[in-house]
């Protein structure tokens, strides 16, 4: 068969996107990861007492959420959803526009937050709204197709709903910062965070876990009923939590956290059962990071419940936020370190007829080990620095995070370089 692979990638029935499409999202996420830690480092002394408002901590938070979480989620979902729905994304120009708008919007918004410049922030919010609206248009068109992986598609629908809500609230919060019309902006900000973390990102992370974890571990997929049960609890908990936060009913918010915890317990139970039945015994360091992130998932909810019931000391809400981020960041980076070489090896197999590189050959273990140690050190140092509170520990934690992000970026660059070397035409 004399086919040039690039000639059919990206067509309507095609489930495999050209490699540069997901990789440009992942590459940008790696750079925003670096930027987030660098900005946090510059405002390390403000973290322990952070209660909202502009400045480096808010900018670092949004570099992480938009630049790393949303960027990775978009790149991964654009490649993974077609696998579930049997319907490709034949919209290269739209995906290109999303990538540019998301990058420009994130830079603009976070620069505005860092410098407390409302017009810059508002411009960033506008660009992000456009990026997210375009992404939602693609996402919903794809999800309408349905597909064989019911659990993934159902999580995708609900994540899309959460994305609409968090975008709307985010824009309201930006306008409110200038005009101050909300009675309680902090409750709005907490609702925005809950929708972003447990809604959009959490639901996508849960949904794709049901495909990716069995694939990497070579284990049976968890039962669809179990996955939908966990999803129902997570959504009911989120709805209760949002209602409690919005209507100032702390007991509702705590009950929401408890229902969410049931969902998380079900989800983690399904993951544990999946891993127990795996055929592949060696899972590699990515699964150490993933297990750490899974441990932080219920811990963040327990902290959230205690916060709603006013049981936390002053440092509690910041620790809640840190562990929430620890869960999502650890999970995404664990997935990325598996799918980056995996996707590169798939495309190498398309491009190279004779002995394309293996996944192992495209994976640099040194940078990944360095990232794992630095990531763990960052979480421990930041937690300790917030609890005591000691700005020096926070500073060292942010520094460890920055070094880890540099190691992760190095891993990504090495994978790209090795792939390019493998597919380069042989010199005469």
């Amino acid at each position: 068969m004399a086919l040039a692979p690039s000639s059919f990638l990206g067509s309507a029935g095609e489930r495999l996107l050209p490699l540069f499409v997901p990789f440009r999202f992942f590459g940008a996420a790696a750079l925003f990861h670096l930027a987030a830690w660098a900005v946090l480092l510059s405002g390390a002394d403000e973290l322990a007492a952070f209660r909202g408002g502009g400045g480096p901590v808010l900018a670092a938070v949004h570099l992480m959420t938009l630049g790393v979480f949303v960027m990775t989620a978009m790149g991964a979902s654009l490649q993974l959803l077609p696998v579930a729905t049997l319907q490709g994304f034949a919209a290269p120009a739209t995906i290109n526009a999303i990538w540019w708008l998301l990058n420009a919007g994130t830079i603009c918004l976070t620069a505005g937050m860092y410098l407390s410049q409302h017009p810059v922030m508002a411009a960033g919010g506008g660009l992000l709204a456009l990026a997210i609206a375009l992404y939602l248009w693609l996402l919903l068109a794809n999800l309408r197709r349905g597909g064989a992986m019911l659990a993934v598609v159902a999580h995708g629908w609900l994540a899309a709903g959460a994305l609409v809500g968090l975008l709307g609230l985010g824009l309201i919060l930006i306008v409110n910062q200038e005009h101050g019309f909300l009675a309680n902006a902090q409750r709005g900000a907490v609702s925005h965070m809950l929708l972003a973390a447990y809604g959009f990102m959490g639901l996508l992370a849960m949904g794709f876990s049901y495909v990716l974890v069995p694939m990497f571990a070579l284990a049976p997929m968890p039962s669809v009923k179990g996955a939908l049960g966990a999803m129902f609890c997570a959504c009911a908990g989120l709805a209760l939590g949002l209602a409690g936060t919005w209507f100032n009913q702390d007991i509702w918010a705590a009950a929401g956290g408890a229902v969410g915890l049931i969902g998380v317990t079900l989800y983690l139970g399904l993951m544990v059962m999946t891993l127990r039945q795996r055929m592949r015994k060696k899972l590699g360091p990515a699964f150490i990071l993933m297990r750490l992130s899974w441990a932080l998932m219920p811990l963040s909810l327990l902290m959230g419940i205690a916060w709603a019931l006013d049981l936390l000391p002053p440092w509690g809400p910041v620790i809640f936020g840190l562990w929430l981020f620890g869960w999502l960041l650890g999970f995404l980076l664990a997935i990325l370190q598996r799918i980056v070489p995996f996707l590169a090896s798939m495309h190498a197999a398309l491009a190279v007829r004779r002995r394309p590189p293996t996944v192992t050959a495209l994976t640099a273990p040194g940078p990944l080990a360095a990232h794992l140690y630095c990531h763990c050190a960052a979480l421990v140092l930041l937690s300790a620095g917030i609890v005591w509170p000691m700005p020096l520990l926070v500073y060292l934690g942010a520094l460890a995070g920055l070094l880890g992000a540099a190691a992760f970026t190095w891993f990504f660059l090495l994978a790209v370089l090795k792939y390019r070397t493998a597919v380069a035409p042989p010199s005469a």
Partner: protein
Amino acid sequence: MYYDSQIAQVLHDEHLRIIDLMNRLEGLTTGRKARNAPAGDDAATTILLADLNAELQGVAGHHFNFEEDNIFPALTAIGDVAIPYMLRQEHDLLRNLSEVMLPMVQKARGDGFTADEWAAFRDLALELVERQITHIQKEEMGLLPVLSEVFEEQQDSELALLFAEA
């Protein structure tokens, strides 16, 4: 049933069998004990080499041929070209690896391994394990779950029967 589709289930069961063989092969060729060739009378190695010999001689080939003749054309017909193309490329690569390894396995079954033969076998075995495992991962995620959408129930049953008969 693990999958909604009978043919997906049949191929999945085949994957489980191959993974088991690859896990055993990886166990033989990694770790401290793999520095030296196994003893010629080691019972586990003898059984493993016999199973590997059967696999390289054509059991996996049957699986590959079946997919190329019956599954990939159906996906290509609905516009999904890249994934079947990539899987076919990987089949060719695994066939080539099998062709290189088969004489080594057959010689080792009769005479055991010399130090040089063991070193060459170990490297190829580890490559085979990795390529087989990642190939199966791709099929488990990108191929088997969609087969119930691609084939009608009647066609699905016929394919499962065809695989068993061949």
